[in-house]
């Protein structure tokens, strides 16, 4: 249905379109009524409704009307402009209209989906439409700015996500810099022995990828490094990276580890971070034999030379390649890239926060990551599952959902811990023959082969008790509990409370955002959700994009996920970066500000307000000028210019005032 009218003098000819979005909009908003109403507004010469405006026929309808009815302005009432503004701008262009003679009205996300009262929602839709109709009169023809995209890419974080993204990009012929904070890449996956559900050996699938990163001609690998500062915009980022000193020249060291043997400390003495503190290391160390790059480093906190300057330095002497340099300084590198993939991963929940589970108090309580190292054939015990006092556990309890699904700590389900708890149950049983109890609230095994894996564990005779454990205690009520850790839990399927004595307790700690996620996201100017993980642009349709163009996210930094999902996402992020690089340029919103020279009095009020230093004072003319390449269109200066001498494309005062008037007119 449509309403058509003849030209109205003085006011541009406006076409109005309202979308049903199937029933998404039409079931709440009386689309017909809005259409009729808008037809009565000044300037509106066409007013139509349509089932799916964004569909091809919907867009074609617009293009045709523009030609046929000589439309000069376009208003579409549909979903969020974040979704389809671009679609309809294109439709306008197809009809031969400048795409910025268009205004979008959001009556789905902001009305039909959030209101139940049909009359009120319809009234709101009319108000919003009227605002746009008033506003669009003042729109001006604009062009998007085109800027070239630098083909080089930065990948931050060298876990499986970063590794996979870097390799994909490098294989496509792009130059990649991979920046990893730790001394080796590999991330969490490098800690595991086996991975669910197929139980392949983690090292067997990870280490080849790690060495490929090191040897790839298109990849520059900077480990032990962190991004300090990011400037610029999509296609043109300038990044400063700090390379921390290893006190060993990375180019000279070949990783023979002769120095480690030669260290004045005959025995490893200091807690080994890589092994979750379960093993010991020397001041000169390498995280694990397959570390990439295979280069040793010195821990300045424990090295005698670094602390006192008075060591024999037997390590340095033992090095044929003269790789030691105790005076190495941090180095600041600057690189130029067009796109960035963030793959900074996750951290596990701090088990000490759940005081009742006794982690840190009872030596028999372990975190899952510690167990990953214990069951690892190349771990500190070479795969022997032993308690801290050397005993072998006869019974092991694995507590699920520690730091997950709990409003006191983290609300979300960490998605991987049910599965890895099954994996650990299997491995513990296999390595030690102990009785294993899994305490779960709900068993979550959605994935290819996952339920089958659970089935296998059931068959293996692992106990599954449905209930959240209330506490772990060493306090015995019966003789059989003496010397054990007792778990108190309601067996909710049986309907009574049980006390179960075990020797070893494993806490399946959940996944959390990295501790510094908040700072990192500031550096890259992206968002974090309330749980602290990086915020994707759209949970379904743009899961690896962020709200900052040219910056993509992959892996567990976006939310809890397992390795298969992480790798899929890393591939997607690489592909998104490639899209930009192959297009060669990006188009920027023309929403920049400019100073009208003859109006400006040179008061400089605007100059300090610009976050991008885009405004300067032309010393000769004593007038402010805005560098439109630097301006990102926030409009702060526009609002502040006391004489109204700054204009902003798409957000002119006239446009906003008329929108205010329109939204309130009755």
């Amino acid at each position, binding site marked *: 249905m449509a309403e058509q009218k003849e030209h109205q003098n003085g006011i541009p000819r406006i076409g109005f379109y309202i979308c049903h979005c199937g029933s998404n909009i039409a079931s709440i908003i009386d689309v017909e009524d809005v259409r009729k109403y808008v037809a009565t507004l000044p300037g509106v010469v066409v007013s139509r409704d349509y089932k799916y405006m964004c569909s091809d026929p919907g867009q074609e309808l617009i293009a045709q009307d523009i030609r046929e009815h000589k439309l000069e302005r376009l208003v579409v009432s549909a979903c969020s402009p974040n979704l389809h503004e671009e679609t309809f701008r294109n439709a306008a262009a197809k009809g031969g209209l400048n795409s910025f003679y268009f205004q979008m009205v959001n009556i789905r996300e902001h009305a039909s989906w959030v209101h139940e009262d049909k009359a009120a929602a319809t009234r709101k839709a009319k108000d919003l439409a009227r605002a746009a109709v008033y506003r669009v009169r003042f729109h001006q023809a604009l062009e998007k700015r085109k800027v070239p995209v630098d083909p080089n890419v930065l990948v931050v974080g060298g876990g499986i996500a970063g590794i996979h993204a870097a390799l994909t990009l490098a294989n496509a012929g792009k130059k990649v810099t991979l920046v990893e904070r730790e001394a080796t890449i590999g991330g969490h996956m490098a800690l595991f022995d086996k991975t669910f559900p197929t139980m392949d050996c983690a090292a067997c699938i990870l280490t080849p990828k790690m060495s490929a990163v090191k040897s790839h001609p298109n990849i520059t690998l900077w480990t032990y490094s962190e991004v300090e500062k990011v400037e610029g915009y999509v296609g043109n980022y300038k990044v400063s990276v700090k390379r921390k000193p290893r006190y060993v020249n990375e180019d000279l060291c070949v990783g023979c580890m002769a120095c480690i043997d030669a260290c004045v400390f005959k025995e490893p003495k200091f807690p080994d971070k890589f092994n979750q503190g379960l093993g010991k290391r020397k001041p000169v160390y390498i995280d694990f034999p397959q570390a990439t790059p295979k280069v040793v480093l010195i821990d300045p906190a424990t090295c005698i030379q670094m602390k006192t300057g008075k060591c024999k330095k037997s390590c340095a002497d033992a090095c044929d390649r003269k790789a030691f340099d105790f005076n190495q300084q941090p180095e600041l590198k600057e690189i130029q890239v067009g796109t960035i993939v963030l793959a900074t991963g996750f951290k596990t929940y701090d088990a000490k926060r759940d005081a009742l589970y006794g982690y840190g108090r009872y030596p028999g309580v372990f975190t899952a990551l510690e167990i990953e190292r214990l069951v690892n054939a190349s771990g500190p015990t070479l795969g022997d599952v032993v308690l801290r006092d050397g005993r072998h556990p006869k019974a092991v309890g694995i507590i699920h959902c520690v730091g997950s699904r709990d409003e006191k700590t983290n609300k979300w389900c960490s998605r991987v811990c049910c599965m890895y708890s099954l994996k650990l149950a299997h491995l513990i049983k296999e390595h030690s023959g102990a009785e294993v109890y899994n305490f779960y609230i709900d068993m979550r095994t959605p994935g290819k082969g996952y339920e089958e894996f659970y089935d296998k564990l059931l068959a293996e005779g692992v106990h599954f008790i449905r209930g959240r454990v209330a506490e772990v205690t060493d306090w015995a009520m019966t003789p059989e509990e003496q010397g054990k850790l007792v778990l108190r839990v309601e067996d909710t399927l049986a309907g009574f409370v049980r006390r179960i004595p075990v020797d070893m307790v494993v806490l399946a700690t959940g996944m959390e955002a990295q501790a510094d996620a908040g700072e990192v996201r500031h550096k890259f100017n992206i968002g974090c959700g309330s749980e602290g993980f990086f915020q994707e642009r759209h949970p379904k349709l743009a899961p690896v994009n962020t709200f900052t163009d040219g910056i993509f996210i992959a892996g567990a930094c976006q939310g809890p996920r397992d390795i298969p999902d992480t790798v899929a996402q890393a591939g997607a992020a690489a592909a998104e970066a490639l899209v930009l690089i192959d297009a060669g340029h990006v188009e920027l919103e023309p929403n920049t500000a400019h100073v009208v020279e003859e109006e400006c009095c040179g008061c400089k009020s605007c100059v300090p*307000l610009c976050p991008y230093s885009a405004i300067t*004072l032309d010393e000769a003319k004593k007038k402010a000028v805005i560098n439109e390449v630097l301006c990102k269109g926030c409009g702060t200066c526009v609002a502040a210019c006391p004489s109204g001498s700054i204009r902003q494309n798409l957000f002119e005062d006239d446009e906003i005032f008329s929108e205010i008037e329109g939204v309130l007119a009755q």
Partner: protein
Amino acid sequence: MSAKPQVAFYWCASCGGCEEAVVDLAEDILKVVEAVDIVLWPVAMDFKKADIEARPDKSITVAFINGAVRTSEQEEWARLLRRKSQVVVSFGACANMGGIPALANQFRREDLLKYIYEDGPGVDNPAKTRPQASSQDEGRTLSLPELRNVVRSLDQVIDVEFYLPGCPPTPKLIMAAVQALLSGQLPPKGTVLSPDHALCEECARKDSKPVDLALAAFKRPHQIQIDPEKCLLAQGLVCMGPATRAGCEAVCPAGNMPCTGCFGPSSRVKDQGAKFISSVFSNIVPKEAKEIDAVLDGVPDPIGTFYRYGLSKCILRRKLN
């Protein structure tokens, strides 16, 4: 009737300053008087309302009206002159924006009358008598103009062609306006007859204004020793210069006093006070609400400061009650 242009001057709620400004034209006034016929000028000559009423409509070439519109009488005169004149020039800050009298828009009429006739210090009025719009005295009916609830700018009462800004307008601007009117080279209706940029442009102190004001405190002129060279805003004084139309040649800053905004805003700005707030307060130092508030405390009377001459033209027009 002579062929010379017929000119009227009228005053509404005015302090007399605008009249003085006309007289201040000095010898130029003679040129003006020579060139025109003055048909109404209450401050200088005696005319009767009936004379004006008797004139044909549009027979006055131009009427200069100054002062805010405060009473029914002023309103009536304004309408009368509108009807009789081809061009009306709103003259001075009061006519343009309500001026000082419009500060009364912060109070209810009732409260004002009560204060003036009952509560004010020095008032001795035990009977609480108040002037009445109409009263009987010895069998005659006496009438007085009625005080309106709202103080208005001239253009809130009648249509106006041009505006001469300033409290009062400077002789230079007045002369320029008169010449333009006489020559018939008229700008578009609604024009304010002074340059359409802000005052800093004309201010001798402009170069000393730092890029980043970063104000951490506001002062009032009596609280500091004012540096005669340096930008006043940079000294923590509320100088309305950046939000005020130029044309006065920065006489106040030149006299070591901050601009108080009598020329009103530029043509791009609807609300001078709001815009001033937006510019100057965006640039203060603190980031926390509490600390910000501490800085803002340095401006004890925001309305009187930002709308000293313009409360009638504030988008909200007056205090609600």
